[in-house]
């Protein structure tokens, strides 16, 4: 497969961090890009002080989307839910260390959208 993206994107695609499932997640949210079919599920364990105790993701998605999800799981470790829910999109796009074409920005931001939507739902209706 031709290397078209930054080294960090390709590395995270091939060796995603925090890939898999949590046995009893407090937050679990899955979404799909309706047209391209990228589908990702994010799961979180939340500590009593409302910080991220553990995060896992899984799914079938493109290189950018998968790498972004992997990088995102590293970015949010130990953060509070309020911090995660307000992470600006630019933070994740910068962490990818490459210029994402406009047509692919949606791919890169899908994991963040899933994570923030899942946390928002949890904050409204905590389990």
């Amino acid at each position: 497969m031709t290397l078209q993206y930054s080294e960090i994107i390709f590395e995270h695609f091939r060796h995603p961090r925090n890939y898999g499932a949590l046995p009893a997640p407090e937050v679990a949210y899955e979404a799909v890009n309706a047209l391209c079919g990228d589908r990702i599920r994010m799961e979180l364990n939340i500590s009593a002080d409302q910080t991220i105790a553990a995060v896992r993701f899984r799914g079938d998605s493109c290189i950018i989307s998968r790498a972004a999800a992997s990088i995102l799981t590293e970015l949010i470790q130990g953060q509070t839910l309020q911090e995660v829910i307000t992470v600006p999109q630019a933070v994740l796009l910068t962490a990818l260390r490459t210029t994402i074409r406009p047509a692919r920005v949606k791919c890169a931001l899908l994991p963040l959208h899933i994570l923030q939507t899942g946390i928002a739902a949890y904050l409204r209706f905590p389990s």
Partner: protein
Amino acid sequence: MHEFFQQLEQLRSINRRVALATLVNTVGTSPRKEGAKMWIGEGGEIFGAVTIGGCVDAHVIEQAEATLATQMPCLIELPLGDEEAWELGLSCAGTIEVFLEPLHAARSQLFDLSTALKSHLDSGGSGALITCLDGTMIGTKLLLLDNGHTLGSLGDVTLDQAVCTAVLPDLAQGLSRLLSFVLPHTTVRVFVEVHTPPATLIIVGAGHMAMLLVQLARPIGFNTIVVDSRPRFATPERFPATDTLLVGIPSEIVKTLPLSSSTAVILVAHDYKYDLPILRHVLSSPVGYIGVLGSRRRGEGLRQFLREEGVPEEALRHIRTPIGLDLGGRSTPEIALAILAEVVATRYGGSHLPLSQQRQDRG
């Protein structure tokens, strides 16, 4: 063949004496219909809807009366004229052989063997019910499973071993046939009735190609499963004829599906995000066919990626890309036809050559 097990179960429950007639050989005609069955009770009563067909039924029923009276199995040979052949769905005159055997729920070995076979089929395996057709061992039965396990016997250890050696390699191809074996003092013919799990077509990617594949696969008898992550594409409206429509993470869905030698996995999403994780899984399974839509170059790219992950070269050779037989067609329906032609040819071990070419070769 599922009718066979249903019928057997019904007969076990009513506990009556019946004769089972099985078409075991066709000579000089085609298509092959070996394995066609009918069940005849006392008084000529026919159980179930399945018969061998045409005027042959009448003759078989007469013979079945004798079988029930003597409680002895027998092999009958019936020459067919053109008209009789057509009634049976055969193309031209020839000879057929039908094996008749008495069955009784309380003491017939067939019930025990079929229970074991059904259980094996349900777990995705294949098996062969082998019946001795002549000599002193006429009517004896041996069950051979594709894992090499056996149950029952043809009455001779040497014959059992010879039959297993001959049948096991081709078991998954599902061809029932008559075989002859030379023993020290005689030649014995056996009927090998192969049972395979229902052929299943798993299609990943709910695009236009998948719609056509489902339409064409149904009349061939495939159980079809369509998988996609996009609910907008994988809808009952787009796939009214599919048996199962599954939406979710495709690689996770495929891991939940039973995969056997009768399963064909066709990846038509043309998207590596589905192809790679699904290939990783199915390449370590016994599926009979793995095809990926795409060019030769794309296929090599997928193989190289998997190779670098440590997938063995032998497993990678199972991936068919470009997919389908070379029929010369270019439209989507033509490509769908070419794909299914390759799936069927692979399932039955076909040569992929035109039949006319084959006959010429055979001289």
